[in-house]
């Protein structure tokens, strides 16, 4: 994707959840273990100060992937390198790495402690990582962070309920920035907000990326938002990245049939008055995924091979890759 040494590289990342019934029930009914492959062998790299956008529908494993990369959840398999050094994802990462990787969550009503003043929420990482030595230093830095995200220094004394959704998300961003991270994972950061608030927040995040030299993993189900924020875009379907390309290639000439479907069905002002032809079917259950290519039951190009054999990612000429037999065979 980019020639620069990647800041983050992830290889073969998988996370499996055991969703089996309790042991006794299993023995009584002689039912096998049931495993949910939320993330299934994901590879990607992100160059410093670039943004990888990740799109996909709910249940495709976007948030699980984000949590694994953030170190909030141990993956079942896979490797991750951060700033060139291998990270042991199974263990709690050391302080230096935890400082450098931060996350912004979807729901600012749930991600801030309602009993903490803004100062405590934003200042806590400053004290925890020893960035501020004294409370006075901490207050000063909190004021600077709040100003950076477009709030007033006086807001530090307030509680989350005194803010609107957009303002709360700004507080969440200020807290994420407090430890001076290099890598910010944003999981649907504007999905709970209206368009005008969303625009302000996206502008803020782009500005902060320049000012703080941030690298983003930006997750959203909204393709237009990802197009605005990302340099490269990965499309996830049932735990796998089915296509990954520089964004212009991906939106102008999507290769994977699922990407084509997503790009076509985005409701937008351009589709005024004519509902886009919706594709039938839904995302299958990750507990019982279809054999072969997970997309084949909904795919207009599926053949016997698609139903039997799982496609491996094939590199594309413009950079990136696509995992589709039909593309690899030149059928589409």
């Amino acid at each position: 994707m980019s020639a620069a040494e990647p800041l983050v590289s992830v290889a073969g990342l998988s996370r499996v959840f055991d969703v089996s019934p309790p042991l006794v029930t299993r023995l009584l009914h002689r039912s096998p273990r049931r495993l949910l492959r939320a993330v299934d062998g994901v590879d990607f790299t992100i160059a410093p100060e670039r943004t990888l956008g990740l799109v996909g529908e709910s249940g495709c494993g976007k948030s699980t992937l984000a949590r694994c990369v953030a170190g909030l959840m141990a993956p079942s398999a896979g490797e991750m390198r951060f700033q060139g050094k291998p990270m042991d994802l199974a263990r709690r990462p050391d302080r230096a790495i935890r400082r450098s990787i931060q996350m912004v969550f979807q729901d600012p009503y749930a991600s801030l402690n309602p009993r903490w003043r803004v100062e405590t929420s934003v200042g806590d990482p400053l004290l925890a990582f020893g960035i501020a030595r004294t409370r006075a230093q901490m207050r000063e830095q909190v004021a600077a962070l709040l100003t950076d995200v477009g709030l007033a220094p006086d807001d530090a004394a307030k509680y989350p309920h005194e803010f609107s959704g957009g303002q709360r998300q700004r507080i969440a961003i200020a807290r994420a920035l407090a430890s001076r991270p290099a890598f910010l994972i944003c999981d649907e950061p504007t999905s709970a907000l209206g368009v005008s608030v969303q625009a302000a927040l996206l502008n803020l995040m782009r500005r902060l990326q320049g000012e703080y030299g941030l690298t983003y993993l930006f997750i959203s189900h909204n393709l237009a938002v990802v197009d605005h924020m990302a340099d490269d875009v990965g499309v996830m379907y049932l735990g796998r990245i089915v296509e990954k390309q520089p964004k212009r290639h991906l939106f102008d000439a999507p290769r994977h049939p699922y990407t084509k479907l997503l790009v076509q069905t985005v409701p937008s002002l351009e589709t005024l008055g004519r509902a886009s032809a919706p594709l039938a079917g839904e995302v299958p259950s990750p507990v019982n995924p279809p054999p072969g290519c997970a997309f084949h039951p909904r795919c207009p190009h599926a053949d016997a091979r698609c139903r039997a054999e799982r496609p491996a990612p094939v590199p594309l000429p413009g950079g990136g890759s696509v995992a589709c037999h039909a593309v690899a065979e030149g059928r589409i």
Partner: protein
Amino acid sequence: MTALLDIRALRVELPGSPPLAVLDDVTLSVNPGEILGVVGESGAGKSVTGAAVLGLLTSPLRQVAGEIRFDGTRIDILPEARMRRLRGSEIAMVFQDPLTALNPVFTVGQQLIQTIREHSPMGRTAAHARAVALLREVGISDPEARLDAYPHEFSGGMRQRVVIALALAGEPRLIIADEPTTALDVSIQAQIIALLVGLARSRGVGVLLITHDMGVIAEAADRVAVLYAGRVAEIGPVAEVLLHPRHPYTRGLVGAIPRIGAGLEVLPQIPGAMPRLDALPEGCAFNPRCPLADARCRAERPVPRLLGAVQVACFHAEARQTDAAQIERPDA
């Protein structure tokens, strides 16, 4: 042609001293077979409008002025017993979250059959046949078998289809759909929109489609009403309002939508935030955020007036787009 739903100068207040107007002088109408979109930020009064039509304003909200007519008859002054007959049979509703709209302890078939028999006296067998027909109409495959399933056995998109089938059970002539696609994935969203549009066209059902998603409005609605701080800013045919917005608020809203391939560095955004109901400015409610505001806007409330096919509540609605271009100057 008499409008199916006719709301005139509706005012809904939150009592207090002084009382706060949640809806203020709201006038709109829905014709048979027409989809009227209602958009606005959270708190603009979209859902309250829907609740008022259904006679479901929750205390302490109350209607203090205006009238609501359904098929020429005033329904806002109907006794609750008669309103109850109307709800479900003539006017039905579809909510945002299909999981809370369905009863988890009854099968979909039990809920459908009970609702059908509630509205029209018929035997079990006839009601069963009707339930199957309804599920088929909303695009659920194998409806016979699905009748015995519980809501949790359906996916989000399928559940919303069930909710729509329930809404259709009483053969309503008007459907109030409050954020019907917000909880759904993009590709499923398109399917539900297509279903609503199809129902309006084939059955002549009028739909009041409440959403904050302009993309959904663009695809589904015939006309659109833009609400701001409990007032109608602009109402007219969807192509007119979205492609040639006349109210500065609509212009800001439409401009703030990220578009695929737009390639903007910074998204246009409306400065400031919607005022709280207890802090509404004098004159036009939008004046503190409006680039065109002058002394008159700050003193006098604009009365909606007709410009072509669009009704706009703005003194400067004729201003050339270039004058409004300054609204696109972001202050991130």
